[in-house]
């Protein structure tokens, strides 16, 4: 078993071995989602604080559900109701949360590095649920779990990532994770959103502004959301984006019938993705959501499960609680 994790702040510092271990740990929780009674007592008495300083629906619900199915309680802090709007610093806010003695803090924040900053000041485990444009590690883990299930292995896959890569924490975490398994990447989007520094950082990454070139021979396609309002940046006409970068059935054919389509959500049909692709057989979108629960349950279990005294569930050994 690889070195025990204290926090999950980013994929970057993890080894392929640690990632494989996390994915393996998620396996039993995947099966568990199919059970009629979805409640374990594993983390009974434990509390996960969910601190979302940026609006989020799916990730917050996913973590809350994961905690609940493990028997843990949750404390919820949402940006709109938090004292941040009253001018309190992030540090004071999380210290207040910490004083209520949760067992971990799951946090999302619009500032890159916010989770690392909090982790450096508090003792308890911090799980990064997305920090600015930096990383979204649980998203990459659930993507990897999804793809590994379908393809059997992550090794050496050809990955196309389409969209606004510069501003995407999902892209960064996926580049980090899949890069550790020898995957090859083609990054594709409007040139100002695909900085050449990604290429320099890693030999197995190339850029293109032509989607056809990116899709050709791809084993998996990650479609990113187009964020329409960007502070400080001139807008791109959406029609232009649709014309050049929408993932359509015709374009997807270039990647072949086995290629998988992933989207981190929220997805805007008719913008970055054609509805026929979103609902088609190659789409993994709903599996991603279910796997998100499994990955987050595994993570909560590993980080706050108290180690040896409680074992992960094996098949049907769940407590009816």
């Amino acid at each position, binding site marked *: 078993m690889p070195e025990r994790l204290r926090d999950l702040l980013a994929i970057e510092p993890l080894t392929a071995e640690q990632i494989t271990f996390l994915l393996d740990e998620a396996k039993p929780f995947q099966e568990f989602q199919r059970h009629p009674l979805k409640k374990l007592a594993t983390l009974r008495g434990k509390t996960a604080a969910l601190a979302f300083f940026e609006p989020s629906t799916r990730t917050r619900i996913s973590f809350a559900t994961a905690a609940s199915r493990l028997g843990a309680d949750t404390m919820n802090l949402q940006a709109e109701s938090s004292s941040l709007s009253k001018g309190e610093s992030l540090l004071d806010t999380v210290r207040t949360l910490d004083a209520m003695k949760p067992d971990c803090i799951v946090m999302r924040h619009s500032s*890159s590095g*916010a989770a690392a900053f909090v982790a450096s000041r508090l003792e308890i485990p911090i799980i990064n649920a997305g920090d*600015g*444009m*930096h990383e979204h590690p649980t998203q990459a883990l659930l993507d990897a779990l999804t793809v590994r299930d379908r393809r059997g292995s992550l090794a050496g896959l050809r990955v196309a990532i389409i969209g606004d890569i510069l501003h995407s924490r999902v892209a960064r975490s996926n580049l980090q994770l899949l890069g550790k398994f020898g995957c090859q990447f083609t990054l594709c989007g409007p040139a100002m959103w695909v900085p050449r*520094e990604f290429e320099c*950082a890693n030999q197995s990454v190339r850029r293109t502004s032509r989607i056809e070139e990116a899709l050709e021979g791809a084993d998996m396609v990650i479609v990113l959301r187009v964020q329409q309002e960007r*502070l*400080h940046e001139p807008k791109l006409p959406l029609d232009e984006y649709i014309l050049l970068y929408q993932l359509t059935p015709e374009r997807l054919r270039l990647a072949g019938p086995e290629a998988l389509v992933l989207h981190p959500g929220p997805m805007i049909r008719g913008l970055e993705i054609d509805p026929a692709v979103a609902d088609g057989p190659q789409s993994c979108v709903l599996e991603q959501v279910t796997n998100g629960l499994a990955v987050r349950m595994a993570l909560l279990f590993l980080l706050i499960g108290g180690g040896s005294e409680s074992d992960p569930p094996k098949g049907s050994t769940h407590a009816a609680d």
Partner: protein
Amino acid sequence: MLPIKPTLPIKPTLRIKNGRVIDPASGTDAVLDVWLEGDRIARVAPPARGEDGDKNGADRAQAETLDATGLIIAPGFIDLHCHLREPGFESSETIETGTRAAACGGFTAVCPMPNTRPVNDSASVTRGILERAATASVRVWPIGAASAGSRGEALAEIAAMHKAGIVAVSDDGKPIATTKLLRQVMDYCRALDLPVIDHCEDASLFAGAVMREGRQSVRLGLRGMPAATESVAVSRDVQIAELTECRLHIAHLSARASLELVRSAKQRGMRVTCEVTPHHFTLCDDDVGYDTHFKMNPPLASAEDRAALIEGLADGTVDAIATDHAPHEPASKDVEFDRAPFGVTGFETALALALELVHAGRLSLARVVELFTTGPARVLGRGRRIAEGEPADLTLFSTEHEWTFRASESASKSRNTPFDGRQFRGAPMATVVAGRVVYRREV
């Protein structure tokens, strides 16, 4: 009846003995004694041996002695760029604490930028600063705002501030907002023979960015600004300086492209000068993580740009090392990276960081002394030398003294330095301002 100035005798008040005098103005590099009389240098002479001291005409009995054996005696260091935060932001720094830190860094004169509250844009604010500075550890040479409130609209009271004692104008913290305003300020300052110091930055490229754009900004997911953010503005400024024939000084220059613009302006004979900060020639963007003590503006440059800056320091393109000492109270820096204010402290580490370049063979010792003395003096149209009759401002330093910088022991009110815990070889050992020893390092 007025005495024709005799060679002898003098009544020295302080004898600094046996130090290696490096005086760039005269090209002196020799072991000498420096005798001070009141606030002036009275004599510079070969070390007196034994009882022969009296042959210099100095009445040794009355003079205190500072033994400078093994030390460099340099003209007093000048810092062209700092923020003393007073008036208005005294929780971060005051004229008293800031100048004390400056003295610890070997500086004998510092030029505080006008971005205080109120902004130093009128003679009354300038006079207030100078009144507070009367009891400060080192000389304070204020820089006045170029525009009223540094708002980039109307001109500030530049001539009145000039009379009150400012040495240059700048809207530092931000660039002089429009090219039209810059042109007016430069026309006006040309007539007053005041240098215009500009913080060069293209506002739209800068907007929202918190570090230099590059591999590291992409990796960290922090918004980056390209080097052109600075050099585009330097290009504008050089062209307007050419048009107006005004003296232009580029603050905290950080990019190779900017340096090349300055180099070519100098080759054309223009009065364009520039400064580089110790953090920009020491660190680069690869050193940036989420530690807000590495966040400053301009941001740390690429390693390639840093190499170009060091080359510019060595070949004379860069005129001065300036600290851009920018204190911020601890709580303001203990936040998310993108919410933290820009700026790091710099007085106490500047010389030691420059000496790192000397030890690495990148810069000569004589050049380092120039960059802290005659270089910045020339930017302000002044001289700086160790000679009879000159103000007794001297910086004594060691190139070998080993020490560790501890932010917690800093004389500054603030702690925002990226160099906490850094081990140094070489340090300021004593600072003399107007004949008074204002700082002596404990050893």
